[in-house]
């Protein structure tokens, strides 16, 4: 099954895989071979692609879509970062910024934005951390 992950900053991944796990808006799901055609929205979380050799490759994403069609999985992500390439210090700084901003006064719109930013930075941290123990 061919898996392709694209984001506005380029094609992040493209290759054969046996499994893809994605954070659907109605719960995390996994796509295997011969999955029925589907379009699903995904939210902030991690995408795990298991390649044919059985190695798991983890990406942090902040939402987008997954399309499954004839054993071709396209992930159209707003952002998709390889877990090993996440800049932990930057993610931490972003988290701290969001936390600090959230303590102040603000209108509902900015607040929603900051909550999302916090969510994203925490997700990146989580994905990066979970990758630390993996022997790769």
């Amino acid at each position, binding site marked *: 099954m061919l898996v392709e992950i694209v984001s506005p900053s380029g094609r992040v991944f493209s290759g054969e895989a046996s499994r893809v796990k994605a954070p659907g808006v109605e719960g995390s*799901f996994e796509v295997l071979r011969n999955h029925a055609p*589907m379009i699903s929205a995904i939210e902030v979380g991690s995408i795990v692609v298991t390649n044919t050799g059985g190695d798991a490759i983890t990406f942090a994403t902040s939402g987008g879509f997954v399309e499954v069609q004839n054993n071709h999985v396209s992930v159209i992500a707003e952002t998709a970062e390889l877990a090993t390439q996440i800049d932990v210090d930057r993610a931490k700084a972003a988290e701290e910024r969001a936390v600090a901003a959230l303590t102040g006064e603000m209108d509902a719109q900015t607040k929603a934005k900051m909550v999302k930013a916090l969510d994203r930075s925490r997700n990146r941290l989580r994905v990066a951390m979970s990758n630390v123990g993996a022997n790769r």
Partner: protein
Amino acid sequence: MASLRDLRGRISSVKNTQQVTRAMKMVAAAKLRRAQENIFQTRPYAFKLSEIIARLKNQLDPTSHPLFKERDEVNNVLLVIVTADRGLAGGFNANVIKQAESVIGSELAEVNANGGLKLLCVGKKGHEHFSRRGYTLVGDFRGTFDKLSFLKADEISSVAEDGFLEGKWDEVYVVYNEFKNTISQNRIVEPFIPIRADRFLTPVMENELSHIEKEDHKFENDLIYEPDVQGILNVLVPRFLNYQIWRVLLDSNAAEQGARMVAMDAATTNADELLKDLKLKYNRARQDAITKELIEITSGADALAAG
């Protein structure tokens, strides 16, 4: 005949200008490379997104999303015109402006006469041109290209989208330069909202798709939607529009740098020719002066010897 000093002055001024144009050419070349990389990086995402939109549109009823719906009566139109912030790029800005004006003068003449035409100018040049001529401008997007970011694209498409939904305009078009290659641009007038049933393709896209879309194109019609069609469309459509504008901005930016590079290259070459000419004149004048002096000396000496 110009004096030696005049010629010297001109030569040095042409040299200075040439230095400037050469530097601008180098800068444009460097920026062009970056702009091109940006385009290539974003393209796969663009294609996927428009592919999915096109497929969904074919499968769904056109009334399923307000931005798909074409209005029967078109009284108000928004024209998004993308120019550059700076000049000195050959005919780059003039060409888009001309294109926009020709559209205003033909297809949109009626709308314009009824006062239903609004313009959104991205880039300083277009903004100045059209505000001077009394058009109704929406928003101020001067300086967009100084620091090009996805947020700007988001802002522009939000303006277009919100106005459409509120009924401020019934159609939105985008006029811009598409980056074809370094030396040439395509001028494009692209329908933006409502999203048409058939996919609008620029010459460059057609060219690329003809390579890609040879794979089999059998799609199954009973897709599973999660959460549901409406939910997907609500997220997908605005993102698609944002992305379209972003693509237009990137293309226009690359085209601008390409146009500037070519213009500055031509200017540098011209300066070279001018210099050659001036140097020839200068050397002739110098030689003339020397000859004259020599004649004076020898004839002076002759006169002395004779006397």
